[in-house]
């Protein structure tokens, strides 16, 4: 078994959901300064793969390694180094956008309110900072969840459909953010249906049923 010591490696991962064999020996690798684009038709296990990589889901077979070590044995260190944005924006409707960031980013690293406001500014939702998340539109909520990913300053980004619900300017923004992150030595694993036209090293992983 080959283990990548400078990035993330997924080695022949198998996942069953009841009788369904969702992931059938998926292997992939992504290094610093690279992005892994996961694509494929609906129901082929893209989100499942992302959950396996995040450590939320344990594969029945296979191993995921980060910097050469299994993510199971170094779970807390690994999770502190990653930022995960699921398909749903994961915001508390009763908290304001800023409070949402304060409480979720605050679990990972000490941050000032100004840093969080800057992150919201970067994703174009600074005006929504003090509004409850429940009154925001789907696109605005997506932008707030992207601001959370930025503010966590994690080296590994796991993004599930980051382009969903976004307008043209928003999609452009996601591409810029990904390029900037990868350019500074970060890694990203992005699940997206669309083609990614990015000026950085993009590895591809196509999942089929």
């Amino acid at each position, binding site marked *: 078994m080959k283990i990548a010591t400078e990035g993330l490696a997924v080695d022949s991962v198998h996942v069953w959901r009841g009788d369904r064999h969702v992931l059938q020996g998926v292997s992939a690798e992504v290094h610093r300064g690279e992005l892994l684009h996961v694509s494929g038709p609906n129901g082929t296990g893209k989100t499942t793969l992302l959950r396996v990589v995040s450590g*939320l*889901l344990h594969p029945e077979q296979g191993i995921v390694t980060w910097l050469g070590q299994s993510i199971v044995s170094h779970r*807390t260190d*690994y999770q*502190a*180094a990653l930022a*995960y944005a699921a398909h749903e924006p*994961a915001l*508390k409707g009763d908290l304001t956008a800023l409070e949402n960031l304060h*409480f979720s980013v605050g679990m990972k690293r000490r941050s000032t309110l100004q840093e969080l406001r800057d992150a919201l500014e970067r994703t174009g939702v600074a005006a929504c900072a003090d509004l409850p998340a429940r009154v925001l539109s789907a696109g605005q909520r997506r932008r707030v969840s992207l601001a959370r990913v930025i503010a966590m300053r994690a080296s590994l980004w796991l993004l599930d459909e980051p382009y969903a619900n976004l307008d043209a300017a928003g999609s452009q923004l996601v591409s810029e953010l990904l390029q900037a992150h990868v350019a500074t030595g970060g890694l990203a694993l992005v699940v997206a249906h669309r083609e990614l036209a990015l000026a950085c090293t993009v590895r591809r992983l196509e999942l089929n049923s």
Partner: protein
Amino acid sequence: MTVSAWEAFWLLVQRELRLSFRRPEQLLQPLVFFLIVTTLFPLGLSLQLSLLRDIAPGVLWVAALLSALLSLDFLFKSDADDGTLEQLALSGHGLTVIVAAKTLAHWLVTGLALVLVSPIVGTALGIPVGAFATMLGSLALGTLTLSWLGAVGAGLTIGLRRGNVLLSLIVLPLAMPLLIFGAGATDRAISGTNPAGALYLLAALCVFTCTLAPFAAAAALRITLE
């Protein structure tokens, strides 16, 4: 710049408290339920005060258990529904810290609140003021224990539809010792005998669940998150 488990714990407690106060109806429902159920007994039974005193500890404790149970369903469910539970699980702090913080915050806004309104109920049921200290102490220990037991049950049932019914079926049998010793302690205090034995047993149960339930609930959550 990393955050210690202790800091994460308090941050999460603050988050839970703020969320609770943004939804006051969720906070008040179990309390109002507790007040109404306990006032129904004296109204419905039209008993002599002495007879009312005999049944008061039982009524008080059954109502307290049921109303605490009402709020347990909210413990992890809303976080699981909106995806924030996954974010918490990936915060790098281990689910035990998450569970402990959420359960403590839950007890502060439900259990402790219930303890604080219990003198009103005690007065309505004719419990003498001299027995209030025992009643308050036993309820505090009992509701805290129940919150921990409930965290394990809630962790196991968040993924299920109609999980709240199953939650009651899991938690209520485990809560029977609380009812026996809690009502026993209050009963002894009313009759003027020493309630220390029952209180010590309640405290032992509380310590037992405080130390073991966070791990059990974290394991339950880990299973349901998959």
